[in-house]
């Protein structure tokens, strides 16, 4: 296990290096710079601005500075917001985290319950109903669900604020919208996974031992059947916690999601690379957790490494 963790961490550093490098060159290859605007400034003024942010240094030199910063986990300053990238993550990360966790908890609990129940009662009307619910979650994009929820629950019924989550009630609608798609997928994966394992020998053994169907499904089949769900939840959590551009925009939650798109459209190089490195580090850790969980749940995969 220690070897696995160490190996993963070393691999993670390599991944971080690649991400930091590629994102740097990709974004610099994109047209336009951070200080372009429709009101173009005279050349001399533009030069002064570029000088201040070292944008007129040769690209390799900017790259070296950039990598030095990444290596020291500094990431530098935003070019558009007069703040360090670290401050931005500290300020906006918790808001995305809160939203993402709420959505994830909702998706995991609701989705698994839906999926496993459907599997236990497969091919009955219960199964179909639950799967239709799950499918509705998947089928309606947050782009549609968000405005609809606002329209009904906020503008219509006045239960929740339409935007600007200041307290728990403000987070309810966005978390539901964000969690819905994941819940649907989780339900489907859980159902498929449980159905798969239900036909396997050890489950049949359990059944033959006279255990009730409920115990078989929830205790034995769920254990292996949940693997696809965990595989899915790992990256999904990272995606959720790093923020959702659409939901954060619709509900005006000042989370990190905005900056993944905003820093690209602003050409705010330090912010984008800082966020990516942060995000990838997060992802590497989560995947490590997922792999460890695999080992715990399904001892057979342990030998794989």
């Amino acid at each position, binding site marked *: 296990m220690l070897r696995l963790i160490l190996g993963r961490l070393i691999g993670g550093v390599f991944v971080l290096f690649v991400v930091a490098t590629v994102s740097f060159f990709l974004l610099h290859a994109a047209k336009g710079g951070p200080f372009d*605007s429709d009101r173009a400034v005279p050349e001399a003024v533009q030069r002064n601005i570029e*000088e201040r942010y070292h944008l007129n240094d040769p690209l390799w030199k900017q790259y070296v500075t950039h990598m030095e910063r990444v290596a020291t986990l500094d990431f530098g300053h935003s070019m558009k917001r007069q703040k360090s990238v670290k401050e931005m993550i500290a300020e906006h990360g918790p808001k995305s985290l809160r939203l993402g966790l709420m959505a994830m908890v909702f998706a995991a609990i609701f989705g698994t319950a839906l999926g496993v129940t459907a599997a236990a009662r497969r091919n009955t009307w219960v199964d179909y109903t639950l799967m239709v619910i799950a499918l509705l979650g998947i089928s309606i994009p947050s782009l549609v669900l968000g405005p609809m929820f606002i329209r009904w629950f906020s503008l219509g019924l006045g239960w929740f604020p339409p935007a600007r989550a200041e307290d728990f009630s403000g987070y309810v609608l966005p978390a539901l919208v964000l969690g819905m798609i994941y819940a649907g997928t989780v339900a489907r994966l859980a159902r498929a996974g449980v159905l798969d394992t239900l036909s396997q020998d050890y489950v049949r053994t359990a059944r033959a031992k006279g255990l009730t169907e409920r115990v078989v499904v929830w205790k034995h089949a769920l254990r292996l059947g949940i693997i696809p769900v965990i595989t899915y939840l790992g990256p999904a959590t990272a995606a959720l916690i790093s923020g959702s551009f659409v939901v954060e925009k619709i509900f005006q939650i000042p989370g990190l999601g905005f900056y993944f798109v905003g820093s690209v459209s602003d050409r705010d190089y330090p912010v984008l690379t800082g966020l990516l490195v942060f995000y990838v580090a997060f992802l590497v850790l989560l995947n490590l957790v997922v792999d460890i969980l695999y080992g715990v749940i399904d001892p057979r995969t342990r030998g794989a490494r």
Partner: protein
Amino acid sequence: MRHPGMPIAATATALALAGCSLPDGEYFGRVPAVRDPKHLRYCNNGQPEGLDPAQISSTTATPLAHALFDGLTRYGNDGLPEASLATSWDVAPDLRRVTFHLHDKARWSNGRSLTAHDIAYHAARMLHPLTASPSADGLDWIKGYDLFIEGRNKVLLAEAGGLPAGTIVEITGWAGVSVADHKTAKDRLPDTNLRTASRPLALRDLGAAPAAAYATVPRGTQVVLIELSGRPASAPSPGAETWAYVHWNRGDGVFGWVPAAELDGQPTGDVAFRVRRVPKQQQPGVDLTLDELAADNAAVRAEVDVRGKDLLGLPEVLGIRAPDARTFVIEAGDPTPYMISMSPSRVLRPTPREAVSRSPRRWAEPGRIVTSGPLHLVAAAERDYIEMVRSPTYWDQADVKLDRLTVYSIDDQAASANLYYTGDCDAIRGSNVPTSYLPVLSGDKRGGRPYADFTVAPYLGVYFIIVNTKQFDNVHLRRALAFSLDRSLIPRVLHGGEIGVASYTPGTPIADLLEEDLAACGVARDTPGVAMVIERGKLCYVPPPGLEFDPVRAKQELELARQEMGPRFPKSVLYKFNTGVEGHKLVAEYVQAQWKNVLGIDVGLESQEWKVYLSDTRKLQYQTGRMGWIGTAADPESEFLRIFRCSSPNNRPAWCNPKYEALMDEAATMTDRKARLAKLREAEAVFIEEAPVIPLYNYTQKHLQKPYVRDLHINFIDQPPLWRVWLDPDWKRKK
């Protein structure tokens, strides 16, 4: 088979639920009871890029900065300048100098008196390369601007080659190579203001004891000298000793004062420079007739070799002077009629030196900020909210009605409208409503009954199509494109009461002008088009008519173009626009349909990300595209016509017309404002007939404010004096 029925049932439910439309009331959404008549909750159109007047340029940030920082003049309720720090001003007859007379009541929020020296400091700061202000060109008319931006105009400290000490000179070369050749080689100009000290430097406020230092520069470390106390455009010396204001490049940078004598080392002192005096037109304090100035500009100025130690860059090379604490003088190179129009702008809103010095990039944050305006910043969270309260030190308390202003930074238009609808905002920033809501708000889709809390007003902006004149170099082709657009349809596409005119310089519809302005504009009430009122009842500009919709002429012009261009005649036209704004796409589709219907031209549309769009249009990688231009002051020349001069960085059509240039040059030397406007009108007529751009409409601003909001004035530049707002708890009774 009951299962497949389920999704359909669900669909039907969804349809039924979504089908319900907005409640049909007099006002758009709920009108909550007024809890605090002195607290305004204002939904702004996004996160301001900052609050430092030197670092902002967007309409999102400027009204907030204007509430925090006072100016010589401020934007009045009607958007025109009114006296504020200055009680009066004298404009020189040649329009090259304004002398502002300040009152002595103004205080910074830290209690210090606000003086003319603060304004001089801010103007120099705006232009200093270390500030790198994106708005620096807002002062591009003052003497010495061009050279100062490049750090090339200096004060000669010792007599050299017949030039007396104190002469303002420009660097023409160094180390034996001319500036132009250095530029090609991308060499950096050696900074003659670099200094070192043999002892540690205690950076502090002017005249403070060394113990009060907030930063200490280690000995031998390079600093940049910014100004010297007691010099013409600088703060007076605290005693007999001269002090130096320096910048130390550490972290975000830090500025501070030290006794000048402590700066005993000069790393660039021995560099050989070649200089000559600047033209008299750019010398502060020199008054000559325009003819004399022209003669001097034409004369050869002798070049002199000097050493770096004899040259010093100081604010006094600029046309700004503070002869005493209550007098501020600003001088322009050319006759500049718009000096007063521009005076309320952020470029002349003084910033607090003591706060800026300690934290140049972050001083405008809660806790660090020192303000001078009616409101003071107390809290802010990015992309969330900004909280301001009444400033107890503001000199004009009677003018402040608000105790608290909460600004929500909302970058999504639908969210903004929703927050207003539920009553979480008392008012929303102009035009921050989704285009698709407008037909309902304006009553077009409600049987002509607009909501009572919805207002449409003219806005100083023009929306136009840019044409790449390098590709579409045939004037008839461009004119055909212009003639074939029926602008009267635009308000029916965008539903915002847009003023669909083909003229360029924007203004107020003539039909809506005040009686006193009609005479000044020289038009009758029923004249079609718009007019720009520059000074109420005195000065007005009526743009020449544009190439209005005329399908017959459009086809004639197209035929001419086809003959003249031969095989180069384009088979189709590509129209680019930037994503992110609903209206751009609607306009693109309208243009596409019009050109296809009237001219039979196939039009391809391409939407691009904003920065890519800006880059492509600047590099002429486009055929046609959209552009908007919003003015900050009522002046056709500085705000609208100059951007299409050959050398303008904003001339995206790359149109360069000698006749236009000549007329603009001619106008630039005129001191009679009416004659000057007439000349500008001639130039604009050339521009319109050549059609490098095809104006579509004048912008309007759309406002939603709850019926209890009072004195939130809507003006043509959307610069509402926010501190004058109050909420009326008894609004229902007074209705």
